[in-house]
């Protein structure tokens, strides 16, 4: 495995761990989600360069589109939870707790 792959993987893993183990604010989770998206973008962009094929060159742009939607959804959830609960603290999502 080259150093490049290591950097993608470690960036992705660290961001996903950050998504899982965030403490208080939802926005920090969303930021981790963005960094996951970033590492995936760079990985997807490096792949046609390394294998010298031109067809997958389209993929990063597609991924960007979907991640924009996803970021927008995440922000909408943040705004909705702020509107109902007054803040974006994570313990607001424990609604299903019995």
């Amino acid at each position, binding site marked *: 495995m080259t150093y490049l792959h290591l950097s993608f993987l470690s960036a992705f*893993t660290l961001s*996903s*761990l950050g*998504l*899982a*183990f965030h403490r208080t604010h939802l926005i920090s989770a969303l930021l981790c989600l963005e960094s996951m998206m970033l590492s995936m973008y760079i990985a997807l962009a490096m792949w046609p360069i390394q294998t010298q094929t031109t067809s997958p060159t389209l993929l990063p742009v597609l991924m960007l589109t979907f991640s924009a939607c996803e970021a927008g959804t995440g922000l909408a959830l943040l705004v909705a939870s702020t509107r109902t609960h007054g803040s974006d603290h*994570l313990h607001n*999502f*424990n*609604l*299903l*707790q*019995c």
Partner: protein
Amino acid sequence: MDLSLVLNTLMLLTITTLLTPIILPMLSDKLKSSPLTITNTVKTSFLISLIPMTIHIHSGMESLITIWEWKFIMNFKIPISLKLDFYSLTFFPIALFVSWSILQFAMWYMASDPHITKFFIYLLFFLITMLILIVANNLFVLFIGWEGVGIMSFLLISWWHGRAEANTAALQAVLYNRVGDVGLILCMAWLASTMNTWEIHQMTSPHQTPTLPLLGLILAATGKSAQFGLHPWLPAAMEGPTPVSALLHSSTMVVAGIFLLIRTHPLFDNNPTALTLCLCLGALSTLFAATCALTQNDIKKIIAFSTSSQLGLMMVTIGLNQPQLAFFHISTHAFFKAMLFLCSGSIIHSLNGEQDIRKMGGLQKMLPTTTSCLTIGNLALMGTPFLAGFYSKDQIIESLSTSYLNAWALLLTLLATSFTAIYTVRMTVLVQSGFVRTPPLTPMNENDPNVTSPLTRLALGSITAGFLITSFITPTKIPPMTMPTSIKLTAIAVTALGIILALEISKMTQTLILKKQSPMSNFSTSLGYFNPLVHRLHSTNLLTGGQKFASQLIDLSWYKLLGPEGLANLQTTASKTATSLHSGLIKAYLGSFALSILIILMSSY
């Protein structure tokens, strides 16, 4: 003329004559039956039945009448056939003679009963079913007669059905008889499946019969003839009127079980297990009944236990492989036992319903005919030489003593013989002799010819029947001819011993104070503790067993634990354990997400 035609016709005429008081009132309104007409019918029937018996004694002619065949299944024939052999031809006149005397007596005894005609119809119906049983060649016809006598016994015992004890006694009779019926049905089923016939003359087999059908027959005889184990109904049956006790429970119905064993005797011939069982059961019954009779105070109960004891003796004779001797004892026993019951009936009515012998005494001067007949009957019962009972009873004891069978059975029978003498003498002494212990004003009257003529007729029968039967009938099995003098005199010796002992003890009881209770006398008085033990224990066990099955096994275990509810419990436990994971905490969900991602990433390398 053709004697066989005469035989067959007159036997059928006998039975038809008995049916007329039942059928004729149905045909016309003017022909009502009355007790007198029924008595005369039975008398006519008796006189007619003498002719076939004479023909048989003269020429040894036997006959088989087949009336109809019930084609029920193709392979299995059930012909409705009547067997006119020695047993049925001889028993018919005896049964009819005894019934005639009892019916004539019942005209006086039940004179104050408003339903006397119904009583006589019941007795007549019983007589007809008994005769069907006797004359049956087929176990099916015999079963019809068997059930018929059982039902009539039930109806007649509970004649005074306002009395609770009478109803209980009738129920006891039916239940114990039913237990015996199971044995008869078992035997019939075995015969139908193995020998494909229910005919009595087809019942021989060259090799040893298996014990199972014989056990069924012995069970049937135990139920019907009140052997030990199914015996309590016979003393309880004394709740019925005295003519009922005289006809059913002394002469005719209770010998039906023994008669069944006599009829099916070829099956028993080569099975020593069944014969030994009969022997020991009979010996036990005779001793037990004689022991219970020693301390009874009701005159009818003493005679009932004496009947039970004699039935045990008949069972012993069957066990000795001597059916003809057992039949002989049945015939002679009918005479004196019926007479004893009629005498007791006369005494009871004369003392206005008093049945306790402790309240009778000195009746010899007040009721001379009755007490003379009582004495004759008791002497015949004890086996006094050359009266009726002697010929059969002495021969039985001789056969028992000279056989190589069970010595224990012999001992018990001899003991029972001496007990017979003891309780008989006790009854005679307390009833007839001594001081008068009855209340002073009693309606004492035996001048009615309806009382005296039956008693004297039966007394004549008790004296001469044994002699007549042995003179005219040749035995089929050779009786023991030679034996040591002491063996020959055994029966008389134990009887004499019993008489002396009884006289001694009754003299003692009139001069000394009453002795305290002892375990022996308690055993005798409470009829061997059999009734309370068996009646409670048996039904308690049955009911608790039933509750265990129905309630605890089926309802609680299978329906609750293992069945639907158990399944439901299992599911709820599983789902309770599963839903504990659904906490609703988002951190837990995200933590498990991270864990799974990590594991996947690790495992892909």
